[in-house]
């Protein structure tokens, strides 16, 4: 069961994701769930009506066997396939700020083990790519994304602009760790005298020195 923290604000915000539910019975006084506005709203919700509600409400009603849940569009078959083949390409941050959290909750609720697996693998793959891009411990960045795509800066900035909230936190943490590391290595250095560029060794002297 994905961990449920009552106090965690990110989790509360993640559960705001809209999903479609279908009721099994009439609901007295449930008419306010209909999307239409104005005085024409009926007082009661009819059996079999499909309405859009936030995930937190759907979760409670599904657990009590009162409604049936449909997966939202952002987790449809096409997206699942792309996640399996190349997760870094998917612009998950635009679909939902809390894509993985909501996805795993939905997968658990609807007992969709395939979705669970796809999401977890995609998350791990994106994490690898993110870490390779953002930190190099002082070395030159080596990234599989850069090798594959001819314009490296474009791919990197595209990937970095499509992160979910959790991945953005990780990216910020990695950059901070890199900063701290540079600061630490910098504290060992002391001021060095640069060799003068005027004093050039002439070619014949170099040859004699090497021979």
């Amino acid at each position: 069961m994905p961990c449920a923290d009552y106090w965690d604000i990110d989790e509360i915000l993640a559960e705001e994701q809209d999903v479609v539910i279908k009721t099994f019975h009439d609901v007295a006084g449930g008419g306010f769930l209909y999307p239409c506005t104005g005085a024409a709203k009926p007082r009661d919700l009819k059996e079999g009506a499909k309405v859009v509600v936030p995930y937190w409400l759907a979760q409670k009603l599904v657990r009590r066997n009162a409604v049936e849940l449909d997966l939202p569009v952002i987790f449809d078959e096409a997206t699942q396939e792309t996640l399996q083949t190349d997760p870094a390409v998917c612009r998950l941050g635009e679909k939902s700020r809390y894509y993985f959290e909501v996805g795993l909750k939905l997968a658990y609720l609807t007992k969709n083990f395939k979705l669970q697996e796809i999401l977890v693998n995609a998350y791990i793959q994106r994490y690898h790519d993110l870490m390779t891009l953002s930190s190099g411990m002082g070395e030159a960045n080596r990234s599989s994304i850069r090798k594959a795509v001819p314009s490296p800066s474009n791919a990197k900035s595209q990937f970095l602009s499509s992160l979910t909230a959790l991945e953005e936190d990780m990216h910020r943490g990695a950059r901070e760790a890199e900063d701290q590391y540079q600061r630490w290595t910098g504290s060992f250095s002391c001021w060095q005298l640069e060799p003068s560029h005027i004093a050039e060794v002439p070619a014949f002297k170099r040859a004699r020195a090497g021979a």
Partner: protein
Amino acid sequence: MSLHGRKAVQLLQDLKRARWLPPFNDKVVKEVAEEINNDSKEMERLAEQDSDEQLEPELLVALYLYDDIMERNKRCLLAYLNARLDVIEQLRWEVGRMVPEEKLQKLHEAEKQYLTNYNNSLDKYMKRYVPNCKHPLDLTANSEAPEDTNIQVRMLRDDPQLDGIVSNDSGLLRLRGGCQMMVKRSDVEHLLRSGKVQQVKTCRGDVVGGGF
């Protein structure tokens, strides 16, 4: 879905967007509390309709619905208040008792009272952590052992409040904007924490022989 249950989320979104804390949103908090009350009355009304012991499924699901919405509003409100209090408690550990005025303005009266009570409890604990202790233990001080007793600091801006502090050990200290001086660490620790002075890092190459 209508605005039912969405107002409380606004509070949390404001909290996430703010750099430190947003000003206490009294209006929305009261509106959410009123929503909870209205839902509770609606539930009572629905339950009164059916006097049989066995509730119809429609009524049962309706009661579930209203109960879930009430629980959600309650959770959002409580999370909002709790997160704010956590941040306020950190104030004491970060800047000590010198809280900047603009931060205090964002707090509700009850939150300011909470901060005072928290400070008092902490002080009480620090004075009596062991029976018959002679000196209070300052838990909010830096937990790392310092390398030198004296450090170089630079004053970032001219501050009339700080011009001429009297310290216990070194007498009068004149701190002016842009001024760099070597002072005892214990005198300026609270100023470093509140960001009024900046520690200047000395290069180890200054030491003759490279420090060896």
